[in-house]
């Protein structure tokens, strides 16, 4: 493979010099560069680098802004940020200033220039500049000249031309203007289409119109015919509906994988017509802001419920120990580790979705100077297979690849550049196989087999009663098919870490994860190495959400460290993480639900088809959990559910917060609102009539734990002040506001059939701290602060006496996985179990030294105190105690037990559940079909709140992840390849997408005798967000989107069809 040519950078001192550097054939593919932000995105998309960049940054005369004689002159090297802030631009061209505010993000605007935005010919500033009649000052091979932007766009530019300045007439006071960029989320988004429009007016008369569209894949263009038709018209008499139609016909815009050309044309026409008219047509007939009748029945707030906010919970608001170093930048993540002799690892990915491997030749890579180790399937000493449920995924593919991110080889070299060059030297011969792109296709009779066992990874059935009888007796039946996305976890720290061989020959692997001892078990199988020769460190990690539950880079790191004998680090780039990492299993859920005339549920039939991707990972568990939540918190006597999980070549899927429950809750809670509409009941009333009574069995017929809080959560939703907020048409006429709710019901733990070990250890360390060791992981959720809280509460010592030790198989005992909303319980239960014995041992040890009776002593903050004393005086500090005891006499108590489960064996059933209700107030945009969440309220009941801030964080963070799932996130695939390569097109919610307000409430108590303690908060936050938003959209416009992320085009069409 050819060596990538080296890039050089030339620094001309003048325009003449610069032109000379690129003017002829001899100058090759040289390109001008100013901010050079866009060119780097091109490289990331795989476009070739030029032979040289010609830096325009040191040429005098390209900077500066002038405002004189009615014209603005903007030097081409002016940063985009200056367009937003410069007073002259804001005064003379407010349209341009407003438009610049929508280009990229603030920090990118400090780098990118107006010249670059124009020169790239796809920039978001082109529509506004076209509408503003901008001219370009250009320095070409024959010297300077001036050209209208519109003309320049209409011709192929000479590659030697340098745009030196943009010149535009100042806007007059007598004009009406609008601009809008329609994207994939609220801000910092690629452009779907951008518009700008200006009407020069004299009183009521339109003197001239200038309208333009463009941006992204839409060719920038003026809409001259429409402009002409507007000139001379009366503003008051203008037929805006016709204008909208004319604009739609005039605008040219192509389809892509994100939005259709029709959508682009529609929203551009809407934005121009509405922006210039001041309001959309049909507004007069729309209901204005109003408050619903439910508001009249407002009861007092739920007794015992607290609002989670610092100002209301001062006494329970603690600083988490990991936060100051995180904010200071001194917190050490596993991917931050560097050591002098450390090699850099890189993994070769398949790059093709389905193929047989004919040969892998690594000789050239091995021969490259600086390469220390190359590993392939031939280097796997044990089973070349892993997977939490079934071991179907190779550590390194040997005979075939099943998805684009499959690992084929890995390299460890002296630096990253050498490792990357070595990857390019590995030759893999593939014979491509037909690609299976949908679960439906996977299950067809003639489908190519992805695994030898067939494409049906799992089929699950459950039924109770007789659905035929149920449906026959029904007064109302609703049926729909709900489709959910391939959501990406999007943890900020991509998969990575380091590994090394210890002096005793054992292996240590440091990679962020969610269950160290299971990672160790899986590595042990792959490496044929006893578990006690492997140490796995999994904490801390920069976010996981289920996406680090399965093995990620551990096999490659371990094999590279073993083969090289040296420490190796490896972290996936985001692009590689997108390609290789697990995603949420996309699901198609067909749900048919029946009720009687009073709204009582009679029967439900559910059929789920889930995409496993290439490997099962936890997909079978996700499917099972989805089915277990098919009835939600309701009683339905006659049910039939079927679930199928199919292998495809669509990446790979696995655990993700919610784990199937949030997908199913979306379907079910939409069905409930549909039935309520049919019956003429409120959303609250239909739920009340069907709510599972306390003590009734769960969906599968299993026993469930006490302290059920469904009635309370429904009451909290009913009495929410949110219902009193305005809805209907917004004041400016561009949005329709609605309110919706959904119940939230989330199982905790791994279920009745799966081993679910738990445990922890308390011990007095030599330095006098009380070490609380758990094999759980701090992923950001607040494990450490929860440990401090739980252990100090149980022991009576101070929070700072506790030193949490987590996520290290060498230092902490087995606690089970940090998944399935189980961590908080394990922390609390272990502390509760170990504390009495540990406290007694501490008191006895102290008693011996103090010549006192142990029964007269107790643990207090800082040390041991007199049992009956409340002075705070210490008889002995923990430090003194530890110093006085030989190591073997320092107290240490380890506990081990199973996570609570029931005895149900016919299926995998949860015993413990957490409860909630979610309400959303949304605004549906009439121009774009986009949905904006204005207010989000979560009522939750998950037992005692161990740490207020951590619990609040889980609910808020889960909610916004849910908003992403609902409105913007999908890792789109086509023919087994990701269309989305990075965070430029995968739309994680940004700060502009977060609701204006979020209010989180918790009802913390337990029934008398309930000793199951805190329930999990990790998944409750995302559980019911999607249906609450869907139901709010339906409240606003009468259309309930059955597919997430919601299609703005479908929403627009639904509004268009509104009576």
């Amino acid at each position, binding site marked *: 493979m050819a060596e990538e040519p080296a890039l*050089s950078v030339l620094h001309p001192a003048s325009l003449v010099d610069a032109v000379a550097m690129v003017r002829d054939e001899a100058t090759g593919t040289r390109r001008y560069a100013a901010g050079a932000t866009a060119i780097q995105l091109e490289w990331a998309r795989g476009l070739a680098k030029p032979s040289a960049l010609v830096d325009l940054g040191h040429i005098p005369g390209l900077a500066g802004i002038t405002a004189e004689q009615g014209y603005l002159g903007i030097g081409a090297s002016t940063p985009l940020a200056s367009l937003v802030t410069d007073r002259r631009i804001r005064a003379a061209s407010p349209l341009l200033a407003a438009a610049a505010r929508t280009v990229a993000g603030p920090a990118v605007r400090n780098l990118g220039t107006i010249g670059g935005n124009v020169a790239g010919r796809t920039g978001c500033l082109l529509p506004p500049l076209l509408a503003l009649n901008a001219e370009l000052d250009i320095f070409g091979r024959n010297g300077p000249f001036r050209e209208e932007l519109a003309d320049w766009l209409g011709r192929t530019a000479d590659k030697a031309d340098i745009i030196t300045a943009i010149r535009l007439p100042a806007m007059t006071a007598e004009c009406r203007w609008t601009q809008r960029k329609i994207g994939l989320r609220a801000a910092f988004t690629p452009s779907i289409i951008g518009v700008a429009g200006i009407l020069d007016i004299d009183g009521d008369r339109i003197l001239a119109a200038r309208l333009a569209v463009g941006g992204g894949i839409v060719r920038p263009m003026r809409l001259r015919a429409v402009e002409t038709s507007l000139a001379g018209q009366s503003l008051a008499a203008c037929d805006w509906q016709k204008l909208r139609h004319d604009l739609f016909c005039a605008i040219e815009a192509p389809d892509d994988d994100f939005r259709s050309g029709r959508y682009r044309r529609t929203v551009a026409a809407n934005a121009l017509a509405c922006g210039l008219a001041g309001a959309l047509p049909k507004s007069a007939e729309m209901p204005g802001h109003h408050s619903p009748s439910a508001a009249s029945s407002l009861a007092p707030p739920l007794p015992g419920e607290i609002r989670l906010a610092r100002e209301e919970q001062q006494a329970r608001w603690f600083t988490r120990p990991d*936060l100051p170093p*995180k904010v200071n930048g001194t917190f050490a993540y596993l991917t931050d580790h560097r050591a002098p002799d450390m090699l850099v690892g890189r993994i070769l990915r398949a790059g093709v979705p389905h193929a047989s491997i004919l040969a892998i030749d690594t000789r050239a890579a091995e021969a490259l100077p600086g390469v220390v180790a190359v590993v392939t399937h031939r280097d796997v000493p044990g089973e070349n297979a892993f997977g939490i449920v079934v071991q179907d995924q190779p550590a390194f593919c040997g005979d075939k690849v099943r998805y684009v991110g499959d690992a084929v080889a890995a390299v460890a070299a002296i630096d990253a550049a050498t490792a990357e060059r070595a990857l390019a030297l590995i030759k893999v011969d593939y014979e491509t196989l037909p690609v299976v792109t949908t679960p439906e296709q996977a299950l067809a009779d003639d489908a190519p087999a992805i695994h030898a066992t067939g494409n049906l990874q799992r089929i699950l059935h459950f039924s109770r009663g007789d659905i035929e009888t149920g449906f026959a007796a029904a007064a109302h039946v609703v049926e729909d098919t709900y489709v959910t996305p391939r959501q990406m976890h999007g943890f*900020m*720290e991509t998969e990575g870490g380091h590994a090394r061989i210890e002096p005793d020959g054992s292996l240590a692997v440091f990679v962020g994860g969610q269950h160290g001892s299971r990672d160790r078990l899986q590595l042990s199988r792959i490496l044929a190495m006893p578990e006690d020769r492997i140490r796995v460190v999994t904490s801390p990690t920069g*976010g996981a959400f289920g996406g680090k539950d399965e093995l990620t880079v551990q096999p490659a790191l371990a094999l590279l460290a073993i083969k090289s004998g040296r420490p190796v680090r490896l972290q996936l780039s985001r692009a590689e993480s997108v390609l290789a990492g697990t995603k949420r299993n996309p699901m198609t859920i067909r749900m048919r639900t029946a009720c009687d005339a009073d709204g009582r549920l009679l029967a439900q039939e559910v059929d789920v088809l889930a995409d496993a991707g290439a490997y099962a990972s936890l997909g079978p568990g996700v499917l099972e959990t989805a089915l277990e939540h098919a009835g939600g918190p309701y009683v339905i006597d006659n049910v039939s559910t079927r679930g199928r999980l199919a292998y495809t070549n669509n990446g790979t899927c696995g655990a993700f917060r919610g784990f199937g429950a949030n997908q199913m809750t979306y379907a079910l809670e939409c069905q409930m609102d549909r039935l309520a509409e049919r019956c003429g009941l409120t959303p609250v009333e239909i739920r009340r009539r069907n709510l599972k009574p306390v003590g009734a069995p769960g969906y599968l017929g299993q026993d469930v734990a006490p302290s059920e809080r469904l009635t309370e959560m429904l009451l909290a939703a009913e009495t929410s002040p949110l219902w009193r907020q305005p809805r209907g048409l917004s004041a400016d006429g561009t949005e329709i506001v609605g309110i919706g709710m959904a119940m939230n019901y989330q199982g905790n733990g791994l279920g009745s059939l799966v081993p679910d070990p738990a445990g922890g250890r308390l011990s007095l360390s030599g330095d006098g701290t009380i070490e609380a060791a758990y094999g759980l992981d701090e992923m950001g959720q607040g494990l450490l602060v929860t440990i401090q809280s739980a252990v100090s509460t149980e022991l009576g010592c101070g929070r700072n006496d506790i030193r949490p030790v987590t996520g290290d198989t060498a230092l902490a005992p087995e606690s089970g996985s940090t998944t399935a909303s189980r961590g908080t319980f394990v922390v609390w239960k272990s502390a509760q179990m170990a504390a009495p014995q540990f406290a007694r041992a501490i008191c006895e040890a102290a008693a011996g030294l103090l010549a006192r009776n142990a029964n007269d002593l107790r643990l207090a903050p800082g040390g041991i105190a007199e049992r009956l004393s409340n002075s705070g005086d210490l008889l002995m500090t923990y430090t003194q105690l530890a110093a006085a005891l030989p190591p073997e006499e320092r107290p240490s108590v380890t506990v081990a037990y199973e996570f609570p489960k029931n005895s149900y064996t016919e299926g995998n059933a949860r015993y413990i559940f957490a409860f909630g209700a979610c309400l959303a107030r949304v605004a549906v945009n009439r121009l774009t079909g986009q949905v904006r969440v204005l207010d989000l309220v979560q009522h939750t009941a998950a037992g005692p709140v161990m740490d207020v801030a951590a619990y609040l964080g889980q609910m808020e963070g889960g909610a*916004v992840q849910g908003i992403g799932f609902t409105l913007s996130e999908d890792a789109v695939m086509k023919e087994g390849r990701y269309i989305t390569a990075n965070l430029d097109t995968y739309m994680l919610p940004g700060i502009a997408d977060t609701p204006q307000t979020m209010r989180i409430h918790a009802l913390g108590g337990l029934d008398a005798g309930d000793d199951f303690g805190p329930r999990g908060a990790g998944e409750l936050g995302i559980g019911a967000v999607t249906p609450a938003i869907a139901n709010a959209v339906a409240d606003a416009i009468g259309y309930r989107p059955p597919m997430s992320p919601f299609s703005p085009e479908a929403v627009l069409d639904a509004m268009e069809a509104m009576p």
Partner: protein
Amino acid sequence: MTMMPTIPVTFRLNGMPQACMAKPETRLSEILRDHLGQSASKTACGIGRCGACTVLKDSVPVNACLVMAWQVGGSDIVSPEGLDAFPETRFIRQGLVEEAAFQCGYCAPGFVVALTALLRDNPHAGEADIRAALEGNLCRCTGYHSIIRGALRAAGLLQQAHQQAAQAGRPT
């Protein structure tokens, strides 16, 4: 053609002169983390779309992953490690910690840099200003409200300090 040509890169980092050799297109984010051992700034997308690598370049926030070695020369870079030089940063960190602003924390240094620039320029920043200034910084854990609360608290603390300083007749 020479393989892997490198250029000398000289700049100021956190007030101190720095010099290293790098390929012209090497990103500043990589120079900081892998050449200079400054690991506070993170790389989470590598294409300027997440803000985890935000640093100050000639006093304005930029994505270090979009700044190439050839663009660094002669500039004044402040990484998260160098923010102690800014009086605002102390209040920002305090406000963010008090409001439990972050969870996994991987995005935190980038947010602190962006907020330092904001409050340095506008100590009276309100929620709308904060939201606008943070549009380029992604956080996957929190849902942003805790960060907004922390930033508002920081602004409050900063204003308080300014008032106290004004009353005491000394500059902050």
